């Protein structure tokens, strides 16, 4: 289904071509490429989008917030960083790919840029969900499996983004920033556990009923969700509290 998402094919192909270009070019050639891209308005990328997210309470985290005066970024590494994060998010939300952000590597030519966009995206999802009354209602209410599944997907994407940022950017964070990330991780884990518990309860109820429920797409979808979570628990990247 990921193939239907606009950007999945496109960003994937873009990364395939541009990463190979970087591997072949001399330093002077890369500088010329950067120059070409900087000159074109259409390749400008804006960061700090998480500023727009509603803030439930005053936040003191400085993560994903640049100290530059404006949010506009230009150049090859920003172009590839955006593609990397968008593509990775699609992989993590709609496929079982075990390492959706595989191309974000310390030492990579666009690593810093990837990390900034990744953290900004994580923060946006985190703050938006924190302030979202619909999410709270979905968690607390019975039934409403469709929004439950959708939010569970959102939390999966956010958790994967956060996990990548924590693991690969670990040496770069101050103790305060590392703690903020840990707190976000715990909050997201709690939400996911609550959503999964709701799905499990619904499945148990379906099995217990004396009717044949053969909505196979739903049962399969829940199974996929649960098996992905079980994988994470086994890998130690998630825990049940």
């Amino acid at each position, binding site marked *: 289904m990921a*193939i*239907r*998402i*606009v*950007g999945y*094919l*496109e*960003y994937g*192909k*873009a*990364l395939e*071509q*541009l990463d190979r*270009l970087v591997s*072949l*070019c001399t330093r*002077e*050639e890369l500088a*010329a*490429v950067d*120059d*070409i*891209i900087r000159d074109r*308005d*259409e390749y*400008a990328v*804006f960061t*700090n*989008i998480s*500023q*727009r*997210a*509603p803030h439930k309470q005053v936040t003191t985290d400085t993560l994903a917030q640049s100290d530059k005066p*404006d*949010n506009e970024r230009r150049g090859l590494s920003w172009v590839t960083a*955006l*593609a990397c994060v*968008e593509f990775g*998010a*699609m992989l993590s*939300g709609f496929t079982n790919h075990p390492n959706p952000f595989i191309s974000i590597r310390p030492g990579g030519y666009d690593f810093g840029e990837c990390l900034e966009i990744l953290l900004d*995206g994580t923060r*946006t999802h985190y703050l*938006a969900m924190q302030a*979202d009354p*619909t999410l709270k209602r979905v968690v607390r209410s019975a*039934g409403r*499996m*469709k*929004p439950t*599944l*959708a*939010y569970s*997907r*959102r939390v999966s994407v956010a958790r994967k983004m956060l996990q990548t940022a924590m693991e690969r950017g670990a040496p770069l964070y101050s103790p305060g920033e590392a703690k903020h990330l840990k707190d976000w991780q715990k909050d997201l884990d709690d939400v996911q556990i609550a959503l999964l518990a709701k799905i499990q309860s619904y499945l148990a109820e379906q099995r217990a009923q004396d009717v*044949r*429920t*053969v909505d196979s*797409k*739903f049962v399969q979808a829940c199974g996929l969700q649960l098996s992905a979570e079980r994988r994470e628990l086994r890998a130690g990247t998630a825990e049940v509290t």
Partner: protein
Amino acid sequence: MLYRIFSTQTLALFVTLGIGVFLSPSAHAALGNRQLQTLHGQVLPAYYRGNTFDLLKSMSSLTKRMSTDQLAELDDELSAKGAPSAAEILVNARMTLLRQNLGRSLSKPNRNEMLITLDGIRRELESVATAAEQHAFMSDPLPARTTLEDYEPLLWDVHVLDQRLQTTSVLADYALSLTDRPLKISTRSLDDEQREILDTDFGALKARIDEIRRDLAEREIELRIQRLAASVSILRNSDNIRNRFFASRAVDIDGALLINELERREKNGAPGFRRAALKEEDLVEEIDRFVVDGRELAGDMITKSRLLFEGLHWWLRGRYGSGPDGFGLLKSPQALTSAEARFALYMPTEMPKPTDSCDSQGYSVPEIDRRHHYIWAWEYRQVGSANRSFSNSESSSRISQETTLSRFY
């Protein structure tokens, strides 16, 4: 005390019932219950999901035998839900699918839909043809260029214009397929405007579009030959890496396109060129010479320029492209099986200049600042009601109720 409470509650109950009775939907005199169910259970969900196929199918079925009064009431219902009118939905859905070359999968429109669709196609053909004829690229001499980079926006304009003409030509073919046999529509029941629609000469409109495309194609060939010559000169005389990237790209792409085009014309016995610059006797040999020299001078820059510009082109499609479904976030379901549908996207006609979504007052460019902010809400997995049994039979009918999560913040 208990009696008083009971009385108050009973009074409240009667008042509520009374108000309910007073406001009962006798206003839906024109639309029946089944029609309302179809509207709310099929049409509107398909609209909110951005599923063009289902939308067309359900709306077409709903409006098939509607009277004018019923259509008017339907439009009111749609408006109350923030949706466009039935006519607009039908035309847009059908034309969206036609533009994606999915006309063969469409059922023939009913009478009401036929008139609406033909009118929509007629307007589009005339509008596109007029705009193309007045385009700056269609006048002589061709627009001036001073640097190699100046060719790029011109060729982009040509590409956009040609794409638009091509999809419009598909619409013309569809209109011809609808009108090439006698229509089972009584002309006595039509007003003047409707008769005018049926009298439209779609063949002539298509011929006009095809003529514009032919002229445009020749102009593009002329432009590419000029760029090819300028590129070879740069590769021969300049060390500037930036310019060499552009020149290598031009040699690569213009060389291939020109050679293929000339070979194709020769093979198909196409009529000779009409533009003077293309009538030279040794045109093919000249282009061949440019390409051979250019490739030799460019060396490995051919591969690198290909990776750069193709990579950037894909990136632009990912950043600014819009699909036909899911309010632009999704491609059609056919993308799962068809390479053509996987590739098809709506792209802006002018190169966008992005804005900071934190500064924008409402509308930002692109409108989708990050796709991952929104796509999580696309929930395609079917969910059944907890107390309902389902059968394996494909003929079992159930009304799907889906929640669309449109809220992000």
